[in-house]
């Protein structure tokens, strides 16, 4: 269970700080929405550990994550864009999610190949992200997040700006993950995304 308890954060020039407070169970998806500037991305960054809250706490299975570095948290983020290392091939981008030093077993490599096949990117492993379309890049990013097998997925507008085929495919992938017990925090301003994926909606 992921508990966000009274998490308070404000940027230096901000007058009234944000305050986040909610709970999510494994296998559930909570959708966060609100106008732009309402703090969606900030929440995502706080959860991932990219930002430090002024007060409050994040608990995962009753243990505080407050003093855990990003790499120590059970989470993987996917943003709207810039999810991939531009100078590394698709294979390497995914592989780094499995082992941070890219020390892959043949089994791992097989998982990457099959994963690419399942998202319709068979044979794209040696390409650079710059050679892919936006939808293809998001598929790679999501695939990495899934193969990384962390119990929490933080998705910040992951489907925004994609064509409808790509959306359908990625939504299905996310539903599969939910079914397997992954906890999802989704920030999206898209009603349909929320309707299909979310169990709860948290308005900012």
């Amino acid at each position: 269970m992921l508990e966000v308890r009274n998490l308070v954060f404000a940027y230096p020039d901000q007058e009234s700080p944000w305050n986040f407070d909610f709970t999510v169970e494994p296998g559930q998806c909570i959708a966060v929405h609100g106008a732009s500037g309402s703090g969606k991305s900030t929440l995502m960054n706080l959860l991932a550990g990219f930002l430090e809250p002024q007060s409050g706490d994040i608990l995962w299975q009753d243990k505080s994550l407050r003093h855990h570095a990003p790499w120590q948290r059970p989470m993987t983020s996917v943003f709207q864009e810039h999810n991939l290392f531009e100078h590394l091939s698709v294979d390497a981008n995914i592989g780094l999610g499995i082992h941070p030093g890219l020390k892959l077993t043949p089994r791992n490599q097989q998982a990457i190949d099959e994963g690419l096949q399942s998202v319709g990117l068979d044979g794209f492993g040696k390409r650079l992200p710059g050679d892919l379309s936006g939808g293809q890049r998001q598929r790679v990013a999501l695939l990495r997040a899934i193969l990384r097998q962390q119990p929490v997925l933080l998705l910040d507008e992951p489907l925004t700006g994609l064509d409808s085929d790509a959306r359908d495919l990625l939504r299905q992938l996310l539903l599969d993950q939910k079914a397997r017990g992954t906890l999802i925090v989704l920030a999206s301003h898209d009603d349909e995304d929320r309707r299909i994926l979310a169990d709860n909606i948290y308005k900012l």
Partner: protein
Amino acid sequence: MNNLAKRQQHSLRSHLTPGRPAPFSRPGWQLWPGFAIAGALVLLSLAGLGALVWEASLPDISQLWQSRYLRTVVSFTIWQAFLSVLLSLLVAIPIARILARQPAFSGRAFLLRLMELSLVLPSIVAVSGLVSVYGRQGWFTGFASDWFGASWNLYGINGIVLAHVFFNAPLAARILLQAIEGAPPSQLRVAAQLGLGRWWYWRAVEWPAIKPVLPGVAALVFTLCFTSFAIVMTLGGGPAATTIEVAIYQSLRFEFDSGQAALLAMVQLIICGFLWWLAARRGLTASLLPDRRVASHRTKAGSSLRARFADGTILGLFVLFLVMPLLAILIRGLPGMGSAFFPLGSFAVNPALLDATMRSLAIALPAGLMSVCAALLILACGTTSKRPAITRLTDVAAYLPLMIPPLVLGTGLFLLFRPSLGSSNEGLVLVTLINAMMALPFVLQMLKGPLGSLDSASRQQADQLGILGWYRWRWLHWPRMRKPLALAMAYGTGLSLGDFGVIALFGTPGQPTLPVLLYQQLGSYRMDAAAATGLWLVLLLLVLFSVFNRLGSPLHKTGLATKSPRSVPEPEHA
């Protein structure tokens, strides 16, 4: 349930047990080695200076403003350095822009090697080349007076500035080119879509890319010209052209007045240090801008024929400016080349020249490597540390070696180590060390941009995925840093290869390095042999730069990190 889901039948990986952490991933590894080196550099420099003061005690400081001589020396030093910086940048900026605009023409790679070469040329060789072209009997002077009836006098401020532009404009252009090529592709894309004209392209793409590095480049060139010595004297025309460094040499070598030397060194330190402080203040805020670099990006190839013709003409003039003195060095060195290599007319290669070459490389390669490693550690420390004091220390350490005259530093260190400095082998280690130290500012300048180029999105991803320490270096920095590292290594090695000052200070047991051999030949009237040695040194440097450049660009696909031949801008899906 699809394939992917099936693979995940096993339960969710237990988290918070990251397994074996990445090697060298503790933050201390990024902090302390660099901190130690930076601290040692600052201590060593100040100790060198301090030893001089301690030996002699400082003279009356008021002579600085009371002596007309010292006043003119200081103001002349600043004036010529200022002019040199101005002209170097005026040449470097258009050249960098053109080279960025024209990414593929035959000879571009060779031109870049030549540009890298000019800085590391031993000054006596370069000056000989410049004189052959721009001197009273020079080709250019003859051409100018025959065709335009123009008279041109090399000796004076003209010559000083010309030589400084020759040495520094290519260096500046090289760094600026690297900056423009690193401009964010999104900006290039927008600019291309809008079909921006030259002026707007400059405003929207080139200037923002150049701006963050410009203060650093200007300060670097200023310091180099400020501390210039033999060139200023040879081409300056007379004692009116005297830099502080000349006065330091005079007090240390002829008057044996260590106190005066230390005082002048401090004046130099204060002026240059102030400048670097200014540059750092302006440069630091600017370089915080995130940018996302890709391996290569599409540049706007020359638009109209007229514009391309203009580019070609300017570039052609620059090439002439650069190549003609080198050509003069070649022509002058060739006749002696045969006898330099085969002194007995047989096919037995001259062992003295060969030995000197090996000895030079044996000093220069470790010195280059040391300066690159030290630079990386110092940069890592500067970027990792959250304490401004430590960041400032690394900045100071990086540029201090440029500002303290080598003679002062060397003499001071000699004083410190005097009781124990035994045979010449330790002297050679010290020479290697000081050479590495002298190369550090250049190496840092080459590496600073690329190492800091990891944008915040990539940094966050890397943090989350646990790509830390050695892994981060291996997968995120190394692929982008190969080229700058190779270039930095080439500069580091090249600078010590051409060094004469440091090695002359510590003395050699009759076993010369190449520059020492050159000066020995000069001292014994062996002008042809000296010209040949000079040419050999130039060729060696050229080979060095080419080899390192080759090492910097992977020849074949390494499988994971591939170089994209055509990085197409990503299509914008609605």
